[in-house]
């Protein structure tokens, strides 16, 4: 008896799936660090501006 | 028997490696060395010698 998978995908939906997968990878690649910076920015009391967030020099 | 049937280079029989040299080639050698180093290290760290190396502040 042939093994039947619990879900059968057509070629088209397989392609769509891999497209979504590679897109989410790109989003995570370029979005991870901005996300960390946003989280930190949102939780810091004095809300530093973008320049002071990215520059290594003391901002005060 | 003359030397003419000998393979070239084998004329002078290679000096037979000593018992220790033979033992060095076996895999047991690194095991033994490192295990004894470990035991020696533990003994050193646990000994008062190590305490003497701590600075008296």
């Amino acid at each position, binding site marked *: 008896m042939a093994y039947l998978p619990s879900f059968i995908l057509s070629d088209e939906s397989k392609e769509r799936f891999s497209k979504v997968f590679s897109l989410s990878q790109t989003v*995570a690649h370029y979005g991870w660090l901005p996300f960390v910076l946003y989280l930190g*920015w949102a939780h810091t009391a004095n809300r530093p501006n973008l320049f002071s967030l990215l520059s290594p020099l003391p901002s*005060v | 028997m003359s030397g003419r049937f000998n393979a070239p280079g084998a004329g002078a029989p290679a000096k037979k490696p000593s018992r220790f040299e033979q033992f060095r080639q076996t895999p047991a050698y690194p095991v033994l060395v490192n295990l004894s180093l470990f035991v020696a290290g533990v003994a050193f760290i646990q000994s008062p010698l190590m305490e003497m190396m701590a600075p008296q502040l």
Partner: protein
Amino acid sequence: MSSTAPLPLGDFSKIPTIPGVSPMTESQQKESFWSSNPIFSYLNNVYNNIHSHRQSLSLTNPGTIENLNKEVSRDVLVGQYFFTGLRADLNKAFSMNPAFQTSHTLSLGSANLPSYAFSALFANDNMFIQGNVDNELSVSGRLNYGWDKNNITKATLQFSQGQPSMCQLEQDYQGSDFSLNFKSLNPSISSKGVFSGVAVGSILQSVTPQFSLGLETIFSRGQAGMPADAAVSYVTRYVAPKQDWIFSGQLQANGALVASFWRKVAENVEAGLETSLQAGMAPIADPVIGTPIGIQPIIEGATTLGCKYEYRQSVFRGSLDSTGKVSCFLERKILPTLSVLFCGEIDHFKQESKLGCGLQFETAGSEELLMLQQGLDPNGNPLQAPVQM
């Protein structure tokens, strides 16, 4: 009809019983059918007995397998800290609680450090998130989330240009006397339901309050069509009753045996020792032709002895190993906002040496932290105790 009270048919408690024989004990009557039937009550009893026995052993959590020899390999030995060339770290802290910090790292003449890297870190009580990007645009990220005090989910991501990306998901459970960990690297399930990637499950169980034993199983399949690989590693750890020395051993599935020993010699001095033996196969070359004619087992071993001295302003680590390497790492805080790093290694057998120098700047992103770094509280008054940043 009649004034007589109805017969107490449903009241079984009125039925006289033979003394000593009761259909149900007091505690069983309080429980539902599922816990009071003979089979389940037996199982419950066994479970309760085991549980109370476990409680009586006063076992503690043994820590995780990942941290099995952390004291030696990550704290005392130089290896983790070593770098070559010049480097400068510019750390900028914006807030302490929750912690938020960015860092710029510049490096010159190093084999493994990128020439520029930027990283950001954010941590609060139950979350830790960190991201790192270098000049070649490769990004690595880490996210730890604690659901409660026993459960932690971790994710590690890595994306680099032109290389397959990596994703690792991990779940940690710390019980009262054991730790469980499930890890999966690049997991994927093909449409045929075949798992590919690496899956690791491990358990570390305390056997006595000092001694713990553990097991790690690895299942890996590179591609869906390939045959899978499975392996088991064994680990053990012993912590001395006074916690002043620790022994740990690992027998890894790839044929490596690692033993380590750690001792806290004094308040500020720690010593560590690590021995590793790696078994492998090497081809035997024909002495005349030079072609491989077979394979032979070989064992490589190395033993490293290290120590760590902690002073008020500086930390010194030194190590000496059986392959002829002597290395040291020195970290000294010259100002509250500036520290100097120095590391060096001499390989006596190969006649090689490596050198690294670095500077670490701590800058503040807010008024409050700037005052804190200079030892003042927000109002400009000196703090009682120096703050460790």
